[in-house]
């Protein structure tokens, strides 16, 4: 959900130049340094580094590193999952979208929440019972290890890389704007802190950073909404009536609008959001941090509640900005009448409008903390794919002690962190809007089909899964590159080769078809072993019999 903004931007680039074209965070200028924001952010960093130190003393084995020893409670994990979803971009981006387009903002929020029932009812149980550290444990359970682990690692790394670049670029621009720090230093601060959290504190520190940030963000956003509602004496109808009166769109701000000009694009995005959620590696990894399936399910319930509540808050914040920010000349550029600081600032200025500079400083610090927490979770997922799936499982065939595996993941973390800083700097002036949409499309077209079919369809074989997974991944990637969002906007060509910027409507079904076709026509020896393995996998996936228990380390 991070860089929701990017998804939104992708969509709008294809259906109309309403938002994010030129006036997104890419066009930021340095803001004057806000001492309140900086002191609050420093306090956050000090507290999280103390937690990291504490977590480091308790992180001794690979399972501690990947899953916090399975000792996170359902409620804590629910907050952490919600934290993974509530990024600075979704906080600032969704509220900005509501502030400029009204009701349409809610359509996106809905898309991000509807994947959860699918995840809990079809996946949670089986993931818990079959896996230990990563979702690759599940999809490689009855198949040949090497091809499936490589597929999962590619799926993970591609999703993480696109997500991470979009985050790092957004982070640098946002921090430059909110704190008056140079872009390059902003990248280094984010990168170094994230490496510290993950490398020394592993999943335990990453989870607590995420929990603290989720609490700060939820309370900050709640306070803002409360102050907005107090301003209108809790008269909801009066609040919206005022918004309609002052909005340049008037009543149209309450209607579903132009974003659905192209139904194919809309439905394709809907598919990517709904099913991509069930294939995001950093979210799936969180299922292994709790002690049993009961807690795993509870954590999704809490997460859905928190995220749903958060989206309602962003909706109120967006409408609050229509009434209290866009009507106040202090927040507008005197010449252009555009919002000062760019299109993503409504929430920040609303904090100032209802709570003064203290609340504004607090909200800016929370936005920074949010970025840090989100990139840490991504880095951990990427490091696990390399150390657990590629190093320990493919290169060493599982013959590696936990200590060595953990050391490999720490070194990997360092490399991923350094790469993230480098890529963040390299992509500063690039348009990265397509990247998060692509990450979701790949998760929906590669990770999700394989994960689902491997547990429900007995006839899936190594060959079918590998071909289907890679076809899904490459199709999503290729169609995106040839689409208007990349071919025209990023690469500067005149006309797109492929008309749609959201590929999931095509790439996800193609992955399923390839899995099916290359499995039923598979007469190899390995195929027979794959089919024979289903019963044992099925019994374990339903009951957990034979699983060591993720907490039993």
């Amino acid at each position, binding site marked *: 959900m991070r860089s929701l903004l990017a998804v939104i931007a992708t969509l709008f680039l294809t259906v109309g130049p309403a938002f994010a074209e030129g006036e997104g965070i890419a066009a930021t200028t340095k803001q004057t340094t806000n001492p309140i924001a900086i002191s609050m952010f420093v306090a956050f960093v000090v507290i999280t580094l103390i937690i990291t130190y504490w977590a480091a003393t308790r992180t001794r084995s690979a399972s501690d590193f990947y899953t916090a020893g399975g000792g996170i409670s359902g409620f804590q994990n629910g907050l952490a999952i919600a934290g993974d979803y509530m990024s600075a971009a979704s906080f600032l981006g969704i509220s900005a979208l509501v502030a400029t387009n009204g009701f349409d903002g809610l359509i996106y929020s809905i898309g991000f929440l509807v994947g959860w029932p699918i995840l809990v009812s079809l996946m949670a*149980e089986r993931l818990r019972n079959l896996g230990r550290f990563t979702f690759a444990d599940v999809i490689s359970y009855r198949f040949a290890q090497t091809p499936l682990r490589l597929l999962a690692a590619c799926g993970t790394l591609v999703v993480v890389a696109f997500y991470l670049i979009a985050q790092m670029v957004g982070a640098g621009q946002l921090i430059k704007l909110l704190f008056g720090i140079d872009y390059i230093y902003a990248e280094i601060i984010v990168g170094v802190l994230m490496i510290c959290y993950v490398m020394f504190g592993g999943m335990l520190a990453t989870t607590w950073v995420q929990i603290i940030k989720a609490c700060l963000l939820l309370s900050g956003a709640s306070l803002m909404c409360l102050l907005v509602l107090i301003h209108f004496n809790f008269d909801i109808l009066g609040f919206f009536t005022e918004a309609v009166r002052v909005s340049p769109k008037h009543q149209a701000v309450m209607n579903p609008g132009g974003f659905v000009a192209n139904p194919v694009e809309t439905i394709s995005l809907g598919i990517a959001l709904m099913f991509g959620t069930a294939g995001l590696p950093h979210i799936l990894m969180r299922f292994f941090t709790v002690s049993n399936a009961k807690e795993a399910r509870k954590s999704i319930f809490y997460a859905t509640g928190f995220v749903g509540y958060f989206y309602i808050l962003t909706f109120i914040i967006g409408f609050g900005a229509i009434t209290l920010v866009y009507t106040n000349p202090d927040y507008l550029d005197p010449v252009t009448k555009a919002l000062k600081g760019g299109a993503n600032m409504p929430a920040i200025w609303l904090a100032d409008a209802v709570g003064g500079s203290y609340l504004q400083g607090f909200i800016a610090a929370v936005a920074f903390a949010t970025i840090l927490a989100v990139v840490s979770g991504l880095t951990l997922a990427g490091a696990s794919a390399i150390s657990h799936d590629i190093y320990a499982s493919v290169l060493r065939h599982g013959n590696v002690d936990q200590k060595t595996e953990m050391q490999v993941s720490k070194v990997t973390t360092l490399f991923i962190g350094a790469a993230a800083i480098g890529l963040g700097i390299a992509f500063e002036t690039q348009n990265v809007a397509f990247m998060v949409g692509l990450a979701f499309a790949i998760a929906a077209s590669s990770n999700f089909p394989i994960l689902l079919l491997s547990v429900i369809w007995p006839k899936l074989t190594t060959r079918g899964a590998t071909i289907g997974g890679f076809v899904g991944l490459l199709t999503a990637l290729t169609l995106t590159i040839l689409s208007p969002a990349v071919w025209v906007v990023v690469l500067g060509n005149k006309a797109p080769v492929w008309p749609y910027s959201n590929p999931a409507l095509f790439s996800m079904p193609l992955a399923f078809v390839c899995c099916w076709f290359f499995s039923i026509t598979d007469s190899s020896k390995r195929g027979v072993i794959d089919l024979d393995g289903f019963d044992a996998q099925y019994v374990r996936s339903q009951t957990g019999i034979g699983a060591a228990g993720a907490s039993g380390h």
Partner: protein
Amino acid sequence: MAADLVSRVKTDPNFIELEAKRGAFGWTIAISMVVIYFAFIFMVAFFKDALSVQVYGVITLAFPLGILVLFSAFVLVGIYVVRANGEFDDLTKKIVEKAR
């Protein structure tokens, strides 16, 4: 896992009950969500005018429906979790104990 254990569990009446009940229930939840969500998206795509009808002052029909879809995701997760953490986990416990 030993082959005899697998076949023993697979023929356990509790296991047969669990897989039938949980399978049907899980798919019902998942398909309900897909239907609700895409019904909403299709309405937004093709019946914009109906959604723009004002139902309470300036508030349009799209508001309650949108909130309802958001809420339905939460409720569907809740319904599944309550039943899975109660009834299905009790059945699982029985199966696991019998398999020992």
